[in-house]
């Protein structure tokens, strides 16, 4: 059978695409495989073993850093999502009004500034506050994370809100619902999948952050990524492989959930 002419096909594209997918995953897979490597060498296979996972878990610094990461990520994600939901309600489904473009740009602005610049800015700003107030807790990190998480939570919530039928709230008002009742009984239930998606996105973004955290943290306030960065700079330990694998697994789980939520349409 002669090959049919496909209008969609372009020469070589499928080959390059497939190569890209393979090359994207290959290094990661290598990493994961060697996390289970018995030997200390990262290239010689010494047998299947969980020793690096065990030793990482026993490493107090790792545990502390993980804990810190989770604390910061949960706080930042929750605050960011609430702020983003409110901001989305304020900036969508309205005729363009004065200040709308400004608000929209401002909210998304953390996405436009390179992390190094924000990191430096916060380093300077927070160092002054540290001197003045003496407070050196996690607050700075949570504040910094919340700020750059807001645009990430904002986008899926806004998308969901824009797709919602405006007439539904009008119908609710027609049927004697006060604005608050309409929000609670109609808008919020329909918005919920978007909010959850935003929350998960913010959580992952916060967990993953390296640069801003590196600049804002005080001594001893390592998060998991900054701890790993320190380890990598000093030399390779297979423990980092193990931690990376767990991290990877977490990302996969969250992305899968996120995909599920986005595909689910009412």
């Amino acid at each position: 059978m002669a090959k049919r002419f496909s209008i969609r096909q372009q020469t070589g594209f499928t080959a390059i695409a497939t190569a890209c997918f393979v090359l994207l995953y290959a290094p990661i897979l290598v990493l994961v495989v060697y996390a289970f490597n018995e030997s200390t060498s990262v290239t010689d296979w010494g047998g299947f073993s969980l020793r690096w996972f065990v030793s990482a878990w026993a490493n107090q610094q790792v545990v502390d850093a993980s804990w810190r990461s989770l604390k910061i990520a949960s706080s930042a994600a929750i605050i960011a999502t609430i702020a983003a939901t409110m901001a989305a309600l304020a900036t969508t489904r309205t005729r363009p009004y004065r200040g709308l473009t400004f608000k929209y740009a401002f909210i998304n602005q953390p996405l436009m500034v390179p992390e190094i610049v924000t990191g430096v800015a916060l380093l300077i700003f927070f160092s002054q506050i540290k001197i003045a107030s003496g407070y050196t807790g996690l607050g700075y990190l949570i504040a910094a994370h919340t700020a750059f998480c807001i645009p990430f939570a904002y986008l899926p919530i806004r998308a969901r809100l824009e797709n919602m039928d405006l007439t539904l709230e009008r119908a609710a008002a027609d049927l004697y619902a006060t604005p608050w009742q309409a929000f609670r009984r109609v808008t919020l239930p329909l918005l919920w999948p978007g909010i959850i998606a935003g929350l998960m996105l913010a959580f992952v973004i916060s967990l993953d952050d390296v640069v801003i955290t590196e600049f804002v943290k005080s001594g001893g306030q390592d998060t998991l990524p900054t701890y790993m960065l320190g380890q990598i700079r000093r030399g390779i330990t297979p423990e980092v492989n193990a931690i990376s694998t767990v991290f990877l697994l977490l990302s996969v789980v969250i992305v899968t959930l996120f995909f599920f939520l986005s595909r689910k349409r009412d």
Partner: protein
Amino acid sequence: MATAAEIEKQAEARETRNRWLLSAPALIIILLAASGPLLIVLIYSFLTPGPYGDVEWKFSTEGWVSVFLERDIFDDTLALATSHLTIFWRSLRLALMATVATLVFGFPTAYFIATRSERTRDVWLFLITIPFWTNLLIRTFAVLQVIRNEGIINTALINLGIVDQPIQMLYTDFAIMVGMVYVYLPLMVLPLYASMEKLDFRLVEAGYDLYASRWQVLRRIIFPLVRPGVVAGSILVFIPAIGAYVTPSVLGGGKNMMFANLIELQFGQGRNWPLGAALSITVMAIVMVALLVYVRNTSGSEVRHG
């Protein structure tokens, strides 16, 4: 009782006030922990470095001068700061090359995903999204493991007898490039895909109907139509690339510095906060220029899809 028209005005005013109140938390948080501090950076760039880091509140333009020039410690003459300029050049070069490379690899990939059937398309999207959400550090680390002298590639090459000595790939500009392309590829693919998904293939059909070859269809029909995606993807890659910190740090070692590493130096051993601030503003300026290019390119072309 107020007239209906007055009620309308009141309702409008109330609505505007509500909208400002609702957006206030987000705006305040971002102002305090993201945008506001940028102004402080600008101020700091005009101050004097303190002896142990931080600054002395004395106006000085040394920070800005040191960005491009260095003062000879003996006779106080100014000369071009070649070390800085090398770093600037490397950053620009690598960022641009990474943008081009991700475009070259990302375009076919996005096209591939966009031309899959409805069912399988989600799978491919899922596959490209996972690396996107995987920690940058982990992915850079994975590249490190692969290209280092005792890494997979070199071990394989030696075992296969192709070379006797490991090829030095790590701690070179090449390593940083590879790392950035690897890390930023999904950032290019996703907006490209978004554009291609909306592509009306009937236009492609029309092209073939009018005797165009595959290459011509690509160049004269497909590419112009997905141009918004190309521009968006390029910006999405260029901005993090020019300010890249982790990738040059891990894959370049201490020697092949980019902007971000130079900046970090000023807040660490270099003890020159004003210079660090000035350098940050410089990076911001480059990003602004890139964004202006983006805005000019997108507002000009109204979306011609469907």
